[in-house]
């Protein structure tokens, strides 16, 4: 593997040409956000910890600073710091088999450890179980630890179509959520403000969807590893103007890349779909491996979770409620299979790599069946690799790399076409 130092002048130039420039703007945005959030600790601003799939728009409309332990977990994972945080939780009796985001977060709450010295103390918590049921157990623990109130936005699992009573339950909880925020912040609900925030959130999410769609183009202007990083603002800050601005800039950059034929890889021979949360501590190595194999991860099931569709601006509360209920992890396997199949067709992939993520049961259980179903529907092969999103103690690099190599090298032979 060559390092930057060995690169010739032309190679360097080419690398610079292919680099995504908006990365800098994003880092600035996120740094500013974390600095502000940390500075708010101990002031009279409210800080809420919220799950990644939770409805954040009401918080923004009430001027509450939202903080995302999962995003922080990813950061700790990428910085190779989550294992030590997990160990803190384990020494306090939390099983090693629990989700490593949760363990790391509990560890960081206790020690203020991690790359940014821990998250600012919450004044309350918001938990939405549309991504898993782990989160409410985790947030119950946080609520006991910090002695702060917990609001649970309960989104029962959706089998088939969303039923009327299901929608009704979500809408009533949205209303309850608003009253909860009124009580806690002492402010009155401002409908106009909320509509504005919701509109910005939706707009940002549609921009994000368009950014991701740019990868339908060949060669792809980015890989999903880039998307994993570039999605931070849509997860944490959607509903604000800065985020809209950021994704406008990013979209413009992506479109220019397409126009100028700039792909993210020097050469793109294979196009792959990624399933599940990234292996955060291994992004760099895997990125290198895929580049070497000329395989581009053009789409994934994870980043598209923040692309909202079908919103009725006239009735934002109700449509938000429905959207939050029907996210990718909260639907049955058949509906998931449809989504993967459509991603595979839209992005014209040669195969799929599934990360069987020890931490995340709703994402990982069922993958074996989904893999078979995927191949049945598309004729394309799948590879399942075993890992954990932030606990590297479960990861066997040489084994995973060998399997990926074998898989990609066999791709041309295996594709049977649809």
């Amino acid at each position: 593997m060559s390092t930057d130092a060995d690169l010739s002048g032309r190679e360097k130039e080419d690398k610079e040409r292919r680099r995504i420039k908006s990365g800098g703007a994003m880092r600035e945005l996120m740094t500013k956000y974390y600095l502000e959030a940390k500075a708010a600790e101990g002031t009279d601003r409210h800080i809420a910890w919220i799950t990644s799939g939770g409805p954040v728009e009401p918080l923004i409309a009430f001027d509450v600073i939202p903080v995302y332990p999962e995003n922080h977990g990813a950061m700790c994972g990428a910085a190779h710091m989550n294992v030590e945080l997990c160990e803190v939780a384990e020494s306090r009796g939390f099983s090693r088999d629990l989700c490593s985001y949760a363990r790391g977060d509990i560890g960081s709450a206790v020690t203020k450890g991690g790359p940014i010295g821990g998250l600012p103390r919450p004044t309350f918590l918001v938990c939405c179980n549309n991504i898993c049921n782990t989160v409410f157990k985790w947030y119950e623990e946080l609520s006991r630890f910090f002695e702060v109130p917990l609001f649970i936005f309960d989104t029962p699992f959706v089998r088939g179509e969303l039923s009327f009573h299901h929608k009704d339950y979500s809408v009533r909880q949205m209303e309850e959520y608003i009253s909860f925020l009124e009580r806690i912040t002492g402010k009155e609900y401002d409908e106009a403000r909320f509509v504005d925030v919701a509109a910005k959130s939706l707009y940002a999410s549609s921009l994000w969807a368009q950014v991701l769609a740019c990868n339908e183009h060949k060669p792809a202007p980015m890989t999903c590893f880039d998307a994993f990083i570039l999605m931070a603002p849509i997860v944490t800050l959607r509903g604000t103007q800065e985020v809209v601005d950021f994704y406008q800039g990013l979209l413009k950059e992506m479109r220019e890349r397409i126009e100028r034929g700039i792909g993210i890889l020097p050469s793109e021979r294979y196009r792959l779909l990624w399933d599940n949360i990234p292996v955060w501590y291994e992004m760099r190595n895997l990125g290198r491996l895929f580049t070497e194999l000329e395989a581009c991860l053009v789409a994934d099931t994870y980043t598209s979770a923040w692309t909202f569709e079908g919103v009725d601006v006239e009735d934002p509360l109700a449509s938000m409620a429905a959207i939050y209920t029907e996210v990718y992890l909260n639907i049955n396997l058949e509906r998931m299979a449809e989504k993967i199949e459509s991603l595979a067709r839209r992005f014209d992939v040669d195969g799929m790599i599934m990360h069987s993520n020890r931490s995340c049961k709703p994402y990982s259980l069922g993958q074996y069946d989904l893999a078979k179903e995927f191949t049945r529907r598309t004729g394309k092969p799948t590879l399942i690799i075993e890992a954990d999103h932030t606990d590297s103690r479960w990861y066997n690099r040489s084994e995973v790399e060998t399997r990926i190599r074998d898989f990609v090298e066999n791709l041309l032979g295996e594709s049977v076409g649809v």
Partner: protein
Amino acid sequence: MGTQTMIDECLEIWRDPYKELSRLREQGERPVAFFCSYTPEEILHAAGLTPVRLMGAARTIGHADAHLQAYCCSLARTDLDMALAGELESLEGAVFVQTCDTMMRLSDIWRRNTGFPFHGDLVLPIRMGEEISLPFLVEEVHRFREQVEAFVRHEISDEALRESIRVYNRNRRLADRLYRLRREKPHVIDGLSATACLVVGFWMPRQAHNEILQRIAENLESVEAEEVDRLPLLVSGSICTTPDLFELLLELGADVVDDDLCCGHRYFDAFADETVAPEDALAKRMWERVNCPAKHQCLEDRAERLLWQVQACGARGVVFYLQSFCEPHLFDIPYLRKRLQEELGVPSLVLESELQSFSRGQLRTRLQAFIETIRGV
């Protein structure tokens, strides 16, 4: 039949319940499997089906590994394995109540890979005991009733449902009576026997179980036995697939005087209201009954309840018996242990079970050490 013979039979079924399935079939019953104590069994019962509870098995996995990763609880893995191996042919189908993430996915995997005629799904809210979730729960109970009706191809009348509610309420009263007896006169019936009498009910029609409980309770209530000196313990967790834990404790001079188990006390807690519309009654019961850690209950704190239970039965230690990889239970452990220790000075032991690698020897060693610490020897 003598009381002890009856209890021995119950124990035998607990040890190897799956052979009961074909027996039920031969008797003309139509068994439907359920996994979770939130299942409104009354609806199945009223439709003429016989709910039986799959509780995992100590076995080597042969088929389920193609569908479930090894980091999934052994109950899901071994139950699926039996189904895929064709060992559950006598079943008409199964009911999946969505409590944890594993069960929610297992439902799809089971439906897609087994060929049972009936597949029932009941989606639960996690917010129990709060006004806001009750209407959702009532609708889900209604939807479940419709699924069952569609399968048996006839309506389940309100009258039939009311009758089933009465049968199950009677069952709960009798189970409670037996448990009270065991708490008050542990020398007359020990934890192993009492739990066996309860667990056996998962493998027979409810009326037959009521007969058994009634006879055992009546016989034992009049018995005056000599007091025995056993260390009183409480067991908390999900399901005990085998009686091993209880047996070992007895062998080691301890006894389970009460439990917080899903196949024990939590199973029969709270009655369904016989005076309101049956669907409302069933929903309300689930909503207010003692909480499972897979749910969020506002009416009562789980730790409070456990502390209270420990004090009431005089247990001097708590054994947490869990399935490996079971997130809902594992999350609660540090908190429950801390409160037990700090507020009551009651020590606890955590045992995790993976049925595929069940080791009685190891279990024994750990239990023995725990008992010795409490006894101070």
